[in-house]
């Protein structure tokens, strides 16, 4: 193989310059490798696009915080992370009347004076006077600060070894080696020129590529050279003397993947959760509220070893399952009243819910939405385009929801952590440029509010509609994301998109959807966040993700089959209580991580538990929060919503404007806790004369039985002996029986065991 060292334009001149590159490691701060300086032979001028640009990146000059900032710094602007060498060459050599570069006295170049802090530099010292990076810049200036030859080989790949590394407790360091491959087939060791960015401060990487792991953990190092970046995964194992692997029994393939990694990390999975915990978890995850006492009792007394599977199958067939999982899609597809109006919201929600209920394959579901046309009332999936009014919104949402890609960065510059360029962004946007609306009527209340649409619209597709590329100042050809050739001029772009997604884009699509389903059940995506798939954000369990995607695709994109597979795994069933080896694990599913119930889950759980119907403005009493089609049916101006509406807002039901799971907030707040402690709604639920307490106390059950019933209803378990004793004491000394039970019910619904999914 040809060795291309990149040291000069002509292979014969390379040697000496190669040596100066080798010196870079020694001179950059924190260098760790000894290098033997050798001086001999002619020195070829450094290559602007390979050497100079690499030095600017390595010294941090072109980061977003420095001269890579949109406005530059102190009048000097470089392209972000060196995405545009041509512009940078102009900045370096022409701006400021060329004062940054002094070809006659290179040492007097402003560029070098600033970087070495020979004159004041807000960015501090970037490298020492006389150091190899200094020499690269100086030599390039001395040689005339020339642009490169037109036939300069382009960078084609960046390989870093090792791709992943497990460090034993005794081991602290290892070396990375980065190799660049160029379009002419040559390779070059760029370890000294690459930039290393660890995801966690517990990992340090020296400029020369030496990795040091300071504490046990798992992290990724992003290795960047010019326009390419490659992730390296590092696992520092904890010291676990006498570790003997004794996991619970595996149930299915999911456990193979999860347990294999845990074993390697010397982390034990927790013990399986109790039957009661499993049951509660499954009801909350699949239906959005906890089991009723009768179901709990039946399940707990069932001796059938297959009862786990039976209950999952049962739950998956219930209409509440379709309703609860429709919420997740409604969040992503922006099912909200202002853009769609009430009728549109109801139509779109019903369509989504029915699709789930009837088991419409997920790929067809996506196809129907992406290729939708027609009246937003008569053909509900067309509401997707109704709520996404601009090509950019459509392009970003479709990428995020269906392909798990966040393209937003690439609107203004090439994506800093992904391969998407601005060209990709605008070409993809052009796919959506032809969407048009025929607004048959608009009875909006506020003429100034251009968000609001009340009335029927017809979505149709006009030919063309190319987006304008802001830099190239020309129309961007419609091109599907990641494809190399544009769509044919006469293509129906939306249909082409829909077919592509479920045709050649089938597996990536399956991976994104499988990851999302996993996220909803396990609390964290294998790729996290779920809509941020990229090489530099690798999955925690790549093989498992592939397996799930293949299972999903292989089953004809059957949502229920994949949920069943995950819910029946031992991994899903593990307890939340940690074992000593896994208490610090938050990413490998060694135990369940408790999380606050979602807004709808929590409110429906309260209502179910206390047997009191809810009311929401604009809907008949008794509707569950999980059944609400949109965000807020009541018009804000025509009066406030009900206590239930307010509760959902306070607890983080998303306004559905962003097409991202992150819009839903489960952060606890002081206001939420006031609602739980002393809020009006809570008070009504507790004191309603016909609520569960009323029924129980009106029967002839004794305190002990009432207590047991109440526990089963709220926490899906009987009270422990300690609780029985303490609560009996409370009942004995209380003035009134009803009031005492209200206190107990309050304590139960305010317990973490109730408020959290665990």
């Amino acid at each position, binding site marked *: 193989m040809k060795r291309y060292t990149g040291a000069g334009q002509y292979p014969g001149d390379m040697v000496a310059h190669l040596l100066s590159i080798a010196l870079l490691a020694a001179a950059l701060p*924190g260098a760790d490798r000894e290098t033997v300086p050798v001086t001999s032979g002619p020195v070829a001028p450094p290559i602007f696009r390979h050497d100079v640009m690499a030095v600017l990146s390595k010294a941090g000059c072109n980061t977003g915080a420095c001269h890579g900032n949109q406005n530059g710094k102190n009048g000097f602007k470089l392209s972000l992370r060196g995405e545009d060498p041509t512009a940078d060459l102009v900045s370096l050599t022409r701006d400021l009347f060329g004062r940054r570069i002094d070809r006659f006295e290179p040492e007097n170049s402003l560029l070098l004076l600033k970087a070495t802090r020979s004159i004041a530099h807000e960015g501090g010292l970037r490298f020492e006077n006389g150091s190899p990076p200094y020499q690269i810049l100086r030599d390039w200036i001395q040689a005339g600060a020339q642009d490169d030859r037109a036939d300069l080989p382009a960078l084609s790949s960046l390989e870093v070894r090792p791709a992943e590394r497990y460090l034993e407790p005794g081991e602290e360091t290892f070396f990375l080696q980065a190799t660049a491959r160029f379009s002419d087939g040559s390779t070059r060791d760029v370890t000294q020129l690459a930039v290393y960015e660890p995801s*966690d401060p517990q990992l340090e990487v020296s400029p020369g590529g030496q990795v040091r792991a300071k504490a046990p953990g798992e992290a990724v190092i992003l290795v960047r050279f010019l326009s390419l970046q490659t992730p390296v995964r590092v696992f520092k194992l904890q010291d676990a003397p006498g570790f003997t692997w004794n996991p619970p029994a595996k149930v299915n393939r999911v456990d193979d993947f999860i347990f294999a990694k845990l074993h390697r*990390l010397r982390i034990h999975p927790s013990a399986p959760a109790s039957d009661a915990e499993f049951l509660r978890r499954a009801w909350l995850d699949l239906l959005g509220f906890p089991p009723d006492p009768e179901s709990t009792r039946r399940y707990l007394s069932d001796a059938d070893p297959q009862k786990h599977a039976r209950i999952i199958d049962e739950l998956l067939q219930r209409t509440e399952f379709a309703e609860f999982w429709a919420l997740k899609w409604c969040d992503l597809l922006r099912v909200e009243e202002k853009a769609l109006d009430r009728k549109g919201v109801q139509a779109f929600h019903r369509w989504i819910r029915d699709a789930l209920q009837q088991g419409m394959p997920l790929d067809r579901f996506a196809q129907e939405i992406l290729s939708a046309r027609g009246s937003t009332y008569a053909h509900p999936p067309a509401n997707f385009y109704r709520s996404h009014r601009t090509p950019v919104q459509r392009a970003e949402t479709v990428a995020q929801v269906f392909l798990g890609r966040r393209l937003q960065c690439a609107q203004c510059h090439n994506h800093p952590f992904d391969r998407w360029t601005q060209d990709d962004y605008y070409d993809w946007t052009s796919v959506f440029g032809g969407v048009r609306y025929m607004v048959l009527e608009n009875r909006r209340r506020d003429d100034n509010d251009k968000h609001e649409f009340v009335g029927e619209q017809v979505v149709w597709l006009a030919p063309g509609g190319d987006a304008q590329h802001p830099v190239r100042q020309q129309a961007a050809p419609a091109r599907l994301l990641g494809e190399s050739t544009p769509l044919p001029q006469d293509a129906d772009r939306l249909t082409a998109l829909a077919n592509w997604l479920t045709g050649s884009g089938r597996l990536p699509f399956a991976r994104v959807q499988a990851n999302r389903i996993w996220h909803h059940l396990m609390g964290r995506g294998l790729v996290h966040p779920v809509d941020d798939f990229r090489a530099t954000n690798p999955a925690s369990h790549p093989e498992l993700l592939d397996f799930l995607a293949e299972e999903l695709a292989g089953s004809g994109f059957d949502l229920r089959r994949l949920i069943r597979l995950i819910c029946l795994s031992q991994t899903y069933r593990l307890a*939340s209580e940690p074992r000593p080896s896994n208490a*610090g694990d938050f990413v490998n599913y060694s135990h369940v991580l408790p999380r606050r119930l979602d807004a709808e889950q929590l409110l429906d759980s309260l209502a179910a538990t206390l047997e009191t119907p809810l009311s929401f403005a604009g809907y008949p009493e008794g509707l569950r929060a999980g059944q609400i089609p949109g965000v807020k049916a009541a018009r804000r101006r025509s009066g406030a919503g009900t206590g239930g509406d307010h509760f959902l807002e306070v607890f983080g039901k998303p306004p559905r404007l962003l097409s991202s799971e992150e819009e839903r907030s489960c952060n606890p707040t002081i206001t939420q*806790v006031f609602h739980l402690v002393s809020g009006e709604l809570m008070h009504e639920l507790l004191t309603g004369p016909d609520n569960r307490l009323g029924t129980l106390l009106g029967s002839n059950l004794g305190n002990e039985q009432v207590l047991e019933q109440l526990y089963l209803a709220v926490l899906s378990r009987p009270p422990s002996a300690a609780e029985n004793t303490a609560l009996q004491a409370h009942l004995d000394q209380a003035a009134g029986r009803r009031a005492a039970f209200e206190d107990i019910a309050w304590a139960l619904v305010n317990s973490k065991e109730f408020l959290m999914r665990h």
Partner: protein
Amino acid sequence: MPTPLRSFACSGFQEVAFPRRSLLRLGGAGLLGLTLPRLLEAEEKNRGSAARARTVIFLFQFGGPSQIDMFDMKPDAPDGVRSPLDAISTALPGVPLCAQMPRMARVLDKVCLVRSMHHEMSNHNSASYYALTGHAPPADDIRLRDSIDLYPAYGSVVDHLSPPSPDLPNTVAFPHVIRDGSITPGQSASFLGKNHDPFLVTDDPNQAGFHLPELSLPEGLSLERLQARRGLQQIVDSQSRLLEHAAEARGLDTYYERALAMLQSDTLRDAFDLSREPDALRDAYGRHTFGQSCLLARRLAEAGSRFVTVYFSNSIGGQSTTSGGWDTHGFNDTRMYPIIKDYHLPLTDQTLPTFLTDLDERGLLDETLVVWMGEFGRTPRINGNASRDHWPHCYTVLLAGGGVKRGFVFGASDEQAAYPAEDPVRPGDLAATMFHLLGIDPHTEVQGAGGRPLAIASGEVISGILA
């Protein structure tokens, strides 16, 4: 020893590249775990800039008050530009004020006028977002909607970077949520998380019996009974052991501690109890929503809140002499001057000087920064309705106390109050100044949606106004 290279590349970038993935580190990712290092980090960054203001009181004048009819009078401007209101002299020599504000004229030596505020946003929601966050919105569009990719309210940033206070919210906003069509962005914590939302009070402080709904217990629920309930809750919590092993559960429980502390403490209840003020003072502030809101703001500053936002009105208004904001276009056959003469100016002239004097007499003004501003000013040229339209290109912000100069005018507009003539500043500069005065480094970065590192302020400290 040369600076390590890595420390220079903006640290947030590294966090963007991958979600933090730290395994095996104990005490890690919970609510509490995250708070402390962030505080320390902020504190470390702030070393060297001592806080001049303990509290900011931000009086937001929704709708856009007119610069040329109030704090930037141009008596010599031509007809059609000059204010039809007469100018009077004030306690600040050479700085006239409209004749409708005689009381304000007497205290003008307490304030600092910034007459060169300017930007380009001419819609209420986009301009208000700019005013309430200090960050230019992505679009000057009435359709700008509140979402977590926009910047947080000032108060939320302050709360995010301040130590939590046990029984008093750091940031409070009242008595409205403002909206123009849709909710005006810039009023929430946005990507900082709901736990940093301003503590919002939408009850009217001017109502008889005004109190904090959160602090009132439902009938039949006494504090003692609540305390007993908390005891029972702790019994149930101890059974599941979630508090022992789940940081999320512990985080949630700290909010119970705080809620009960707030319910039991007199600090917050007292701060909201306006009946403790003498009637004469309440009358002097003005028996209207804005007057009593300013009084409440003073009480919260005394109690120790760090950022208090008072919204003048819930809507842009401008067409009524009994309610609404400053948006006086003369639409629907209304006229600007009768409206502001009857409503906005007398009301402001009652409350604002009373408020400033009260703060000053209590010795609070030096440690309390008062900001009075709208989202923009109004057109220099009087329109066909004998009124004025939106004008973001130059308007006046009134500041007082908290480390800014007294009796000072900064910047200047041109002869028609149309464009800055000297020292132009933008909302981002005001933001940087407020953070600086609170002892928060304006360059502090927070993590935005999708992990982007974002500086809390987009401008530079206006050093010319620092006392």
